[in-house]
């Protein structure tokens, strides 16, 4: 496979959750959690997916690995249509794309030693024999900044940062090409967060990993990602290269997000776009441009017409009538 080829290609992905109510449990509507999202990730690249709560960013990650089933659209991994696979074929593909979650503690069994928790996937997938496992686990622990004596300990004996290292080790041992990391550093303290961000970076350089990095924190995303997509209420509002997005944001929502991030420099003068109101419910999103209810620049057209997601030049995509 050439470097320029897409490792992951998501085309017009949609995920609607039915809302059921009443005595007969009829479907009375849909939460359009993900509504027509497209993403391309190349080998060794990091794509940052940014959005606030309810934007659908986690649902995108889960639909890609089929932890939940899509409603519409296409997910291609190394050219293979993931949704065409049967259960057995899907199982064989899974080691190549791994998920890491925000809270590693809840995905670790408290009674299983971490060495076993990390090694079990290898056995499951028949990628190593019982005798070889310990060596593999020790190696992956080392590359995640833990020591071999940690193998026989239980999850509760580790701090939050170390648990996230275990979560990463568990994903890494299968030698994946793509890691989907869902808010992996959000629960960590600043000093530990920096350690884990550096670990993600180093692993990418040594192993040629690609990441889909899902986060609400723009400063973390800027640090790690090559390309960034900004989601709002299930739709992508802007996608571009990192430099372009931070220097020349086109969508008012992206601008507002950037201006809302607190910067640790006291008495800093900067222009701030304070958005009014709350994020509307994804079960009942506004018509037209979904952002128009909070947009300080909205005009009449925004209330009626859904803006097209179009290339504004240089592979910088935006969905806004005014951009």
């Amino acid at each position, binding site marked *: 496979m050439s470097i320029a080829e897409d490792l992951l290609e998501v085309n017009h992905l949609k995920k609607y959750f039915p809302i059921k109510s009443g005595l007969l449990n009829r479907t009375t509507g849909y939460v359009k959690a993900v509504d027509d999202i497209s993403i391309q990730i190349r080998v060794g690249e990091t794509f940052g997916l940014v959005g606030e709560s309810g934007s659908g960013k986690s649902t995108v990650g889960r639909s890609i690995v089929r932890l939940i089933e899509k409603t519409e659209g296409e997910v291609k991994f190394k050219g293979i249509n993931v949704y065409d696979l049967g259960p057995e074929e899907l199982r064989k593909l899974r080691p190549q794309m791994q998920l890491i979650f925000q809270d590693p503690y809840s995905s670790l069994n408290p009674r299983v030693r971490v060495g076993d928790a990390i090694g079990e996937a290898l056995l499951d997938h028949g990628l190593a024999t019982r005798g070889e496992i310990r060596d593999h686990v020790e190696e992956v622990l080392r590359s995640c900044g833990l020591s071999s004596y940690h193998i026989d300990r239980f999850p509760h004996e580790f701090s939050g940062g170390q648990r996230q290292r275990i979560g990463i080790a568990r994903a890494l041992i299968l030698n994946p090409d793509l890691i989907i990391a869902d808010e992996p550093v959000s629960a960590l303290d600043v000093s530990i967060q*920096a350690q884990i961000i550096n670990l993600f970076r180093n692993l990418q350089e040594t192993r040629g990993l690609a990441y889909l990095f899902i986060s609400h924190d723009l400063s973390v995303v800027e640090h790690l990602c090559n390309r960034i997509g900004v989601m709002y209420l299930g739709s992508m509002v802007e996608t571009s290269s990192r430099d372009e997005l931070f220097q020349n944001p086109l969508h008012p929502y992206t601008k507002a997000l950037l201006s809302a*991030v*607190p910067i640790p420099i006291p008495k800093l003068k900067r222009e701030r776009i304070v*958005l009014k109101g*709350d994020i509307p419910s994804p079960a009942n999103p506004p018509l037209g441009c979904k952002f128009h209810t909070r947009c300080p620049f909205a005009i009449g057209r925004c209330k009626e017409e859904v803006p097209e997601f179009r290339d504004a030049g240089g592979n910088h995509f935006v969905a806004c009538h005014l951009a």
Partner: protein
Amino acid sequence: MKNLLEIEHLSTHFTTEEGTVRAVDNISLRIRSGETVCIVGESGCGKSITALSVMGLIEEPSGKVVEGSIHFGDKDLLKLGKNELRAIRGNEIAMIFQEPMSSLNPVITIGEQIIEPLMVHMNMGKREAQKQAIRLIEQVGISRAEQIARSYPHELSGGMLQRIMIAIAISCNPKLLIADEPTTALDVTIQAQILDMLRKFKQESGMSILLITHDLGVVAEMADYVIVMYSGKIVEEGEVVELFSNPKHPYTRGLLKSKPIINQRQDELYSIPGQVPNPLELESSCYFHDRCDNCMAICRTDEPALKEITIHQKVACWLYEEGALHVHS
């Protein structure tokens, strides 16, 4: 300016099966009228326990304020009886928490919950309190106030609930507002709204704020004076511009360096090695020594005292002690 709150040599300990945790270990701080003081630190540093100690909310018998005094005006809060303390709490000192949902009663309407303190502390009649409740809801930037007053907590979003908490907190015109990670659970665009609102109320009413946060960005936006805590102790404190532009303690410097900042990209982030020490295993030493780039022999054996090094800054670090070996990075 007069000191509104004066904490002197406060220690709060917790007894666990494995031993005693000195969650807050001999700290002193002052808040003047109209001032915003931020306590910043990572999980377990004692910043929330400091706030809970002020409010008299440390749960006995496992936790106990073992030493010190907390003067609010001319009263020592630690010497007050339950009823006297209750008269001050929610009235002259109000507090908001990270999770508004857990501080509101799920089966009572929002309106009722705002009315209650008004009737208890401000001696308002029901009708008057109801009118005031609507005014308060409007004041925190919520439209359709009457409808919101009739709804229950689960019907509102996190950002709305935090606004309601602020409405309740400011309803009795407190002199001091203690805010413990008030925006940590909120999205950034909502966080910006809430911080703006807190600044506005502070300006209008002249109240003081004790803001507890782990986010240095929030500190820079809000604080007049900053206190940095580590493992139950104050390691550095100072006026906000001074502390950010000229941090002295290696921990403060490390924290500031390890936070990624928008539009200031670095190839590799600085990270403080290791992790916070186990609070049960603390021995006489600088608690930061095994993570410190500038560690000296004395740091492993002796605890540095918090000392004034300029008029605006205090630091607890052997690097700045006369007579100790000076190493400059």
